[in-house]
Protein backbone atom coordinates (compact mmCIF):
# COMPACT_ATOMS: atom_id res chain seq x y z
CA UNK A 1 0.00 0.00 0.00
CA UNK A 2 2.77 2.38 1.00
CA UNK A 3 4.75 1.44 -2.10
CA UNK A 4 1.77 2.07 -4.41
CA UNK A 5 1.26 5.56 -2.89
CA UNK A 6 4.87 6.34 -3.50
CA UNK A 7 4.46 5.10 -7.05
CA UNK A 8 1.51 7.45 -7.72
CA UNK A 9 3.42 10.30 -6.16
CA UNK A 10 6.50 9.59 -8.29
CA UNK A 11 4.64 9.50 -11.62
CA UNK A 12 3.61 13.20 -11.75
CA UNK A 13 7.07 14.25 -10.53
CA UNK A 14 8.68 12.14 -13.23
CA UNK A 15 6.28 13.61 -15.84
CA UNK A 16 7.01 17.18 -14.76
CA UNK A 17 10.78 16.59 -14.84
CA UNK A 18 10.44 14.73 -18.11
CA UNK A 19 8.39 17.56 -19.66
CA UNK A 20 10.98 20.16 -18.67
CA UNK A 21 13.91 18.13 -19.93
CA UNK A 22 12.27 17.04 -23.17
CA UNK A 23 10.67 20.45 -23.63
CA UNK A 24 14.05 22.06 -23.12
CA UNK A 25 15.62 19.77 -25.69
CA UNK A 26 12.90 20.49 -28.22
CA UNK A 27 13.27 24.21 -27.67
CA UNK A 28 17.02 24.00 -28.26
CA UNK A 29 16.60 22.03 -31.49
CA UNK A 30 13.86 24.19 -32.96
CA UNK A 31 15.50 27.56 -32.28
CA UNK A 32 16.84 28.61 -35.67
CA UNK A 33 19.90 30.80 -35.97
CA UNK A 34 18.73 34.29 -36.91
CA UNK A 35 21.52 36.42 -38.40
CA UNK A 36 21.70 40.07 -37.35
CA UNK A 37 21.19 42.96 -39.76
CA UNK A 38 24.93 43.68 -39.58
CA UNK A 39 25.74 40.15 -40.69
CA UNK A 40 23.27 40.40 -43.57
CA UNK A 41 24.59 43.82 -44.62
CA UNK A 42 28.20 42.61 -44.48
CA UNK A 43 27.35 40.20 -47.30
CA UNK A 44 24.90 42.56 -49.02
CA UNK A 45 27.40 45.39 -49.42
CA UNK A 46 29.40 43.22 -51.83
CA UNK A 47 26.39 42.69 -54.08
CA UNK A 48 24.47 44.87 -56.52
CA UNK A 49 20.95 44.27 -57.77
CA UNK A 50 20.75 44.66 -61.59
CA UNK A 51 17.48 46.57 -61.21
CA UNK A 52 19.02 49.36 -59.12
CA UNK A 53 22.36 49.94 -60.82
CA UNK A 54 25.20 51.42 -58.77
CA UNK A 55 23.38 51.08 -55.44
CA UNK A 56 24.90 48.46 -53.12
CA UNK A 57 22.39 45.93 -51.87
CA UNK A 58 22.87 46.90 -48.21
CA UNK A 59 21.46 50.40 -48.79
CA UNK A 60 19.11 49.75 -51.70
CA UNK A 61 15.51 50.62 -50.73
CA UNK A 62 13.55 48.76 -53.43
CA UNK A 63 11.36 45.73 -52.85
CA UNK A 64 13.59 43.57 -55.05
CA UNK A 65 16.58 44.38 -52.83
CA UNK A 66 14.55 43.77 -49.67
CA UNK A 67 13.76 40.29 -51.03
CA UNK A 68 17.44 39.71 -51.78
CA UNK A 69 18.45 40.70 -48.25
CA UNK A 70 15.80 38.32 -46.88
CA UNK A 71 17.34 35.60 -49.05
CA UNK A 72 20.80 36.38 -47.65
CA UNK A 73 19.39 36.19 -44.12
CA UNK A 74 17.80 32.83 -44.92
CA UNK A 75 21.05 31.43 -46.36
CA UNK A 76 23.12 32.72 -43.43
CA UNK A 77 20.59 31.12 -41.09
CA UNK A 78 21.20 27.83 -42.87
CA UNK A 79 24.90 28.19 -42.13
CA UNK A 80 26.07 29.26 -45.60
CA UNK A 81 29.33 31.21 -45.81
CA UNK A 82 29.62 34.60 -47.54
CA UNK A 83 31.41 32.94 -50.45
CA UNK A 84 28.68 30.32 -50.87
CA UNK A 85 26.00 33.01 -50.87
CA UNK A 86 27.85 35.07 -53.47
CA UNK A 87 28.31 31.99 -55.65
CA UNK A 88 24.58 31.32 -55.38
CA UNK A 89 23.72 34.88 -56.43
CA UNK A 90 26.16 34.70 -59.37
CA UNK A 91 24.60 31.40 -60.49
CA UNK A 92 21.12 32.93 -60.27
CA UNK A 93 21.68 36.46 -61.56
CA UNK A 94 25.08 36.54 -63.25
CA UNK A 95 28.49 38.10 -62.58
CA UNK A 96 27.13 41.62 -62.68
CA UNK A 97 25.71 41.30 -59.17
CA UNK A 98 29.25 41.31 -57.76
CA UNK A 99 30.84 44.57 -56.62
CA UNK A 100 34.21 43.30 -57.85
CA UNK A 101 33.97 41.34 -61.10
CA UNK A 102 35.73 37.95 -61.16
CA UNK A 103 39.15 38.05 -62.86
CA UNK A 104 38.37 36.10 -66.02
CA UNK A 105 37.80 36.88 -69.71
CA UNK A 106 37.47 40.57 -70.54
CA UNK A 107 37.14 41.33 -66.82
CA UNK A 108 40.94 41.06 -66.64
CA UNK A 109 41.08 44.47 -68.30
CA UNK A 110 39.53 46.03 -65.20
CA UNK A 111 42.47 44.81 -63.13
CA UNK A 112 45.21 45.28 -65.74
CA UNK A 113 44.46 48.67 -67.26
CA UNK A 114 44.79 50.90 -64.16
CA UNK A 115 48.30 49.73 -63.09
CA UNK A 116 49.52 49.60 -66.71
CA UNK A 117 48.15 53.11 -67.33
CA UNK A 118 49.89 54.39 -64.19
CA UNK A 119 53.24 52.86 -65.24
CA UNK A 120 52.92 54.30 -68.76
CA UNK A 121 51.93 57.67 -67.32
CA UNK A 122 54.98 57.75 -65.05
CA UNK A 123 57.21 56.83 -68.00
CA UNK A 124 55.70 59.57 -70.21
CA UNK A 125 56.04 62.11 -67.40
CA UNK A 126 59.65 61.10 -66.82
CA UNK A 127 60.50 61.52 -70.51
CA UNK A 128 58.63 64.82 -70.76
CA UNK A 129 60.48 66.20 -67.73
CA UNK A 130 63.78 65.26 -69.34
CA UNK A 131 62.94 67.14 -72.52
CA UNK A 132 61.71 70.15 -70.51
CA UNK A 133 64.99 70.33 -68.62
CA UNK A 134 67.28 69.85 -71.63
CA UNK A 135 66.94 73.29 -73.34
CA UNK A 136 67.59 75.15 -70.09
CA UNK A 137 70.71 73.21 -69.28
CA UNK A 138 71.90 73.42 -72.89
CA UNK A 139 71.39 77.21 -72.90
CA UNK A 140 73.16 77.55 -69.60
CA UNK A 141 76.05 75.50 -70.91
CA UNK A 142 76.45 77.71 -73.98
CA UNK A 143 76.31 80.90 -71.91
CA UNK A 144 79.04 79.68 -69.64
CA UNK A 145 81.32 78.13 -72.19
CA UNK A 146 84.81 79.18 -71.16
CA UNK A 147 86.23 78.92 -74.69
CA UNK A 148 83.56 81.27 -76.08
CA UNK A 149 85.48 84.29 -74.73
CA UNK A 150 88.90 82.99 -75.63
CA UNK A 151 88.11 81.84 -79.17
CA UNK A 152 90.64 83.54 -81.47
CA UNK A 153 88.32 83.58 -84.46
CA UNK A 154 85.52 85.22 -82.50
CA UNK A 155 87.94 87.80 -81.08
CA UNK A 156 89.19 88.72 -84.54
CA UNK A 157 85.66 88.92 -85.89
CA UNK A 158 84.57 91.25 -83.10
CA UNK A 159 87.66 93.39 -83.53
CA UNK A 160 86.99 93.82 -87.28
CA UNK A 161 83.38 94.70 -86.60
CA UNK A 162 84.43 97.35 -84.11
CA UNK A 163 86.85 98.88 -86.65
CA UNK A 164 84.08 99.32 -89.23
Amino acid at each position, binding site marked *: MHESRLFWFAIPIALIFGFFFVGGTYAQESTPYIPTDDEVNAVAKGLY*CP*VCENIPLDVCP*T*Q*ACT*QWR*ALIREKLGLGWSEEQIKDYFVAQY*GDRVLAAPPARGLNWLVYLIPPVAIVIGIYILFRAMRTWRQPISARAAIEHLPEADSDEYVARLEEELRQR
Partner: protein
Amino acid sequence: MSEFQSTSSPSETPTPPASTGGRIVIFGTNLSVGALIAWIAVLALLALVAFGLLRRQQGPVAAGQAAPDFALTTFEGEQFQLSDLKGKVVLINFWASWCKPCEEEAADLEAAWRDYQPRGDVVFLGVDYVDTEPEAKAYLKKFDITYPNGPDLRTRASQAFRIRGVPETYIVAPDGKLTGVQIGPFTSLAQIKATIDPLLKP
Protein backbone atom coordinates in the same frame (compact mmCIF):
# COMPACT_ATOMS: atom_id res chain seq x y z
CA MET B 1 52.75 54.22 -101.84
CA SER B 2 51.60 52.38 -98.76
CA GLU B 3 50.40 54.31 -95.72
CA PHE B 4 52.99 52.52 -93.64
CA GLN B 5 56.62 53.24 -94.41
CA SER B 6 59.62 51.66 -92.90
CA THR B 7 62.30 54.28 -92.39
CA SER B 8 65.43 52.27 -92.41
CA SER B 9 67.32 54.99 -94.25
CA PRO B 10 68.07 58.02 -92.04
CA SER B 11 68.21 60.30 -95.06
CA GLU B 12 64.50 59.74 -95.80
CA THR B 13 63.34 60.72 -92.34
CA PRO B 14 65.55 63.23 -90.59
CA THR B 15 64.34 62.55 -87.07
CA PRO B 16 66.08 62.78 -83.72
CA PRO B 17 67.87 59.57 -82.86
CA ALA B 18 65.46 57.04 -81.33
CA SER B 19 66.56 55.49 -78.12
CA THR B 20 65.08 52.10 -79.00
CA GLY B 21 64.43 50.17 -82.18
CA GLY B 22 63.16 51.53 -85.45
CA ARG B 23 60.56 54.14 -86.20
CA ILE B 24 57.44 54.00 -88.33
CA VAL B 25 55.67 56.74 -90.27
CA ILE B 26 51.87 56.56 -90.19
CA PHE B 27 49.79 59.25 -91.88
CA GLY B 28 52.86 61.51 -91.91
CA THR B 29 53.54 61.06 -88.19
CA ASN B 30 56.85 59.58 -87.14
CA LEU B 31 56.28 57.16 -84.29
CA SER B 32 58.52 54.86 -82.32
CA VAL B 33 57.40 51.23 -82.02
CA GLY B 34 56.59 51.75 -78.33
CA ALA B 35 54.42 54.78 -79.07
CA LEU B 36 52.67 52.85 -81.84
CA ILE B 37 51.84 49.99 -79.48
CA ALA B 38 50.58 52.49 -76.88
CA TRP B 39 48.35 54.16 -79.50
CA ILE B 40 46.96 50.80 -80.65
CA ALA B 41 46.20 49.87 -77.02
CA VAL B 42 44.45 53.21 -76.39
CA LEU B 43 42.41 52.92 -79.60
CA ALA B 44 41.45 49.32 -78.78
CA LEU B 45 40.31 50.41 -75.32
CA LEU B 46 38.28 53.28 -76.77
CA ALA B 47 36.69 50.90 -79.29
CA LEU B 48 35.76 48.54 -76.45
CA VAL B 49 34.21 51.37 -74.41
CA ALA B 50 32.35 52.66 -77.50
CA PHE B 51 31.01 49.16 -78.22
CA GLY B 52 29.76 48.85 -74.64
CA LEU B 53 28.10 52.27 -74.72
CA LEU B 54 26.47 51.62 -78.09
CA ARG B 55 25.15 48.30 -76.85
CA ARG B 56 23.67 49.97 -73.78
CA GLN B 57 21.97 52.63 -75.87
CA GLN B 58 20.59 50.22 -78.46
CA GLY B 59 17.37 49.60 -76.55
CA PRO B 60 15.33 46.41 -76.71
CA VAL B 61 15.34 44.22 -79.81
CA ALA B 62 12.79 45.58 -82.24
CA ALA B 63 9.98 44.07 -84.29
CA GLY B 64 11.26 42.66 -87.58
CA GLN B 65 14.51 41.37 -86.08
CA ALA B 66 15.19 37.69 -85.46
CA ALA B 67 14.29 36.80 -81.89
CA PRO B 68 17.40 36.00 -79.81
CA ASP B 69 17.53 32.35 -78.89
CA PHE B 70 17.46 31.47 -75.20
CA ALA B 71 16.79 28.54 -72.91
CA LEU B 72 14.29 28.51 -70.07
CA THR B 73 14.00 25.95 -67.31
CA THR B 74 10.68 26.37 -65.55
CA PHE B 75 10.16 26.28 -61.80
CA GLU B 76 8.84 22.73 -62.33
CA GLY B 77 11.99 21.69 -64.21
CA GLU B 78 10.56 21.64 -67.74
CA GLN B 79 12.99 22.90 -70.41
CA PHE B 80 12.27 25.14 -73.37
CA GLN B 81 14.54 26.40 -76.14
CA LEU B 82 13.11 29.20 -78.25
CA SER B 83 14.69 27.86 -81.45
CA ASP B 84 12.83 24.56 -80.91
CA LEU B 85 9.50 26.39 -81.00
CA LYS B 86 9.71 27.45 -84.66
CA GLY B 87 6.40 27.00 -86.41
CA LYS B 88 4.54 28.29 -83.36
CA VAL B 89 3.61 31.73 -82.16
CA VAL B 90 5.54 32.42 -78.95
CA LEU B 91 4.68 35.08 -76.40
CA ILE B 92 7.61 35.85 -74.07
CA ASN B 93 6.67 37.85 -71.00
CA PHE B 94 9.37 39.27 -68.69
CA TRP B 95 8.01 39.87 -65.20
CA ALA B 96 8.94 39.89 -61.51
CA SER B 97 7.05 39.43 -58.26
CA TRP B 98 8.21 42.86 -57.01
CA CYS B 99 6.84 44.55 -60.14
CA LYS B 100 3.48 46.21 -59.51
CA PRO B 101 2.68 46.96 -63.20
CA CYS B 102 3.18 43.23 -63.92
CA GLU B 103 0.17 42.52 -61.72
CA GLU B 104 -2.01 44.67 -63.98
CA GLU B 105 -1.58 42.32 -66.93
CA ALA B 106 -1.22 38.99 -65.09
CA ALA B 107 -4.90 38.03 -65.22
CA ASP B 108 -5.26 39.03 -68.88
CA LEU B 109 -2.19 37.02 -69.89
CA GLU B 110 -3.53 33.95 -68.12
CA ALA B 111 -6.95 34.41 -69.75
CA ALA B 112 -5.30 34.69 -73.18
CA TRP B 113 -3.24 31.55 -72.50
CA ARG B 114 -6.36 29.57 -71.58
CA ASP B 115 -7.95 30.70 -74.85
CA TYR B 116 -5.00 29.71 -77.03
CA GLN B 117 -3.71 26.61 -75.23
CA PRO B 118 -6.15 24.11 -76.87
CA ARG B 119 -4.96 25.18 -80.37
CA GLY B 120 -1.43 23.92 -79.74
CA ASP B 121 0.24 26.43 -82.04
CA VAL B 122 0.70 29.16 -79.43
CA VAL B 123 3.22 29.03 -76.57
CA PHE B 124 3.40 31.43 -73.67
CA LEU B 125 6.69 31.66 -71.73
CA GLY B 126 7.04 33.68 -68.54
CA VAL B 127 10.58 34.78 -67.73
CA ASP B 128 11.00 35.79 -64.09
CA TYR B 129 13.55 38.62 -63.98
CA VAL B 130 15.86 39.18 -60.96
CA ASP B 131 13.51 37.58 -58.47
CA THR B 132 13.56 35.20 -55.54
CA GLU B 133 11.92 31.82 -55.99
CA PRO B 134 9.49 31.79 -53.01
CA GLU B 135 8.10 35.22 -53.95
CA ALA B 136 7.92 34.25 -57.63
CA LYS B 137 5.98 31.08 -56.85
CA ALA B 138 3.65 33.00 -54.53
CA TYR B 139 2.97 35.45 -57.38
CA LEU B 140 2.16 32.62 -59.81
CA LYS B 141 -0.20 31.08 -57.26
CA LYS B 142 -1.84 34.41 -56.49
CA PHE B 143 -2.76 35.00 -60.15
CA ASP B 144 -3.35 31.30 -60.87
CA ILE B 145 -0.88 31.37 -63.75
CA THR B 146 -0.64 28.04 -65.54
CA TYR B 147 1.59 28.73 -68.57
CA PRO B 148 5.30 27.81 -68.24
CA ASN B 149 7.34 30.17 -66.09
CA GLY B 150 10.95 30.05 -65.00
CA PRO B 151 13.75 32.19 -63.63
CA ASP B 152 15.99 34.19 -65.94
CA LEU B 153 19.15 32.41 -64.84
CA ARG B 154 22.24 34.68 -64.89
CA THR B 155 19.90 37.25 -66.59
CA ARG B 156 20.90 35.73 -69.95
CA ALA B 157 17.46 35.99 -71.58
CA SER B 158 16.86 39.56 -70.44
CA GLN B 159 20.32 40.55 -71.68
CA ALA B 160 19.72 38.86 -75.03
CA PHE B 161 16.49 40.86 -75.44
CA ARG B 162 18.16 43.95 -73.92
CA ILE B 163 15.11 44.63 -71.77
CA ARG B 164 14.98 47.95 -69.93
CA GLY B 165 12.60 46.85 -67.21
CA VAL B 166 9.55 44.72 -66.47
CA PRO B 167 6.99 44.01 -67.71
CA GLU B 168 8.07 43.65 -71.32
CA THR B 169 6.48 41.22 -73.76
CA TYR B 170 7.78 39.95 -77.09
CA ILE B 171 5.71 38.17 -79.72
CA VAL B 172 7.64 35.78 -81.97
CA ALA B 173 6.10 34.69 -85.28
CA PRO B 174 6.29 31.07 -86.51
CA ASP B 175 9.31 32.03 -88.69
CA GLY B 176 11.28 33.10 -85.59
CA LYS B 177 11.05 36.84 -86.19
CA LEU B 178 9.78 39.32 -83.67
CA THR B 179 6.49 40.81 -84.73
CA GLY B 180 5.48 42.69 -81.62
CA VAL B 181 7.09 44.30 -78.61
CA GLN B 182 5.03 45.54 -75.69
CA ILE B 183 6.91 47.77 -73.27
CA GLY B 184 4.91 48.03 -70.07
CA PRO B 185 1.77 46.06 -69.22
CA PHE B 186 -0.97 45.04 -71.65
CA THR B 187 -4.08 46.98 -70.80
CA SER B 188 -6.63 44.37 -71.87
CA LEU B 189 -7.19 40.84 -73.11
CA ALA B 190 -8.26 42.30 -76.46
CA GLN B 191 -4.88 44.01 -76.82
CA ILE B 192 -3.04 40.71 -76.28
CA LYS B 193 -5.27 38.95 -78.80
CA ALA B 194 -4.78 41.71 -81.33
CA THR B 195 -1.02 41.01 -81.35
CA ILE B 196 -1.37 37.22 -81.64
CA ASP B 197 -4.43 36.62 -83.85
CA PRO B 198 -2.94 38.05 -87.10
CA LEU B 199 -0.10 35.49 -86.83
CA LEU B 200 -2.37 32.45 -86.58
CA LYS B 201 -3.51 30.30 -89.44
CA PRO B 202 -7.30 30.23 -89.76
